[in-house]
C-alpha cells in the first residue's frame, strides 16, 4: 500500500471514529457548522426576480 492509500485509510478511520462520540457531542459538531452552511446557502441562492433579471443582462 503506497503512502497516499495509507493516508486515505487513516482519514477514513478518523472520520469513522467520530461515530463513537456521544450523540450530544455529534449534535454540537453539527450545530457548529450550521451557521456556515446557512451563510453559504444565502450567498448562492438567487435573491428574487429582480436579481434574476439582473443576471440575464
Amino acid at each position, binding site marked *: 500500500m503506497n503512502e497516499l492509500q495509507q493516508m486515505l485509510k487513516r482519514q477514513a478511520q478518523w472520520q469513522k471514529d*467520530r*461515530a463513537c462520540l456521544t*450523540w*450530544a457531542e455529534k*449534535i454540537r459538531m*453539527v*450545530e457548529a*457548522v*450550521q451557521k456556515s452552511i446557512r451563510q453559504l446557502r444565502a450567498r448562492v441562492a438567487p435573491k428574487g426576480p429582480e436579481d434574476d433579471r439582473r443576471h440575464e443582462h
Partner: protein
Amino acid sequence: MKELAQLLIEMRVAGVIQDYALFGAVAQIRYTEPVATLDADVLVAVPSSKGLDQLGEIYEFCAQRGWRAEGEAIRVGAWPTQFIPAFSPLTREAMEQAETADFEGLSLRVVRADHLAVIALSVGRAKDFARILSLLESSSVDREAIAKLAARHGLSEAWQKFRKKFLDE
C-alpha cells in the same frame, strides 16, 4: 437541541402532544458519524380531539414560548423543526417503539435505527438511500432486520431494489 428537548417535554406534559420521536438526520447522527443538517424532524401524535388541525396547537404552544414559524418549520433555538403527524402504520410504530436517549441531562425520544432505515427506504431520495448505507456501515442495523421490517410494511420490493442497486446482491 437542548431547547427542543425541553420544548418537547413541556408539550407532552401540557397534553399538546401525546407522544413524539425525533427522526431524520438528527436521529441518524445518534447511530452514525455526524452528518451536516439544518433541520430537525419530529414525529408527533396529537390527541384525537384535534381533528384536521393537528398542528395548530403545536404552533400556538411554540409561539407562546417565542419560537416562531419559519416556512414549513418552527425555529426552536438553532433548529428549524418540522413536526410531522405519525400518519402511517410505519411512522406510528417507529414513534411508539422509539428509544429514550439522554441529551445533556434531558430525555429525548429517538426513532430506532431499523425504523429509521425503513422510513428512509419508503421516502426513497438519494439522501435517504445514503442514510440506509450509513446505518448499515455503522452496524446499528443489519440487512435482515431491515428486510423483516420492510416486509411488515409492504416495502419488500423497494428493499430488493435497494439491495440490488447498492449492496451488489
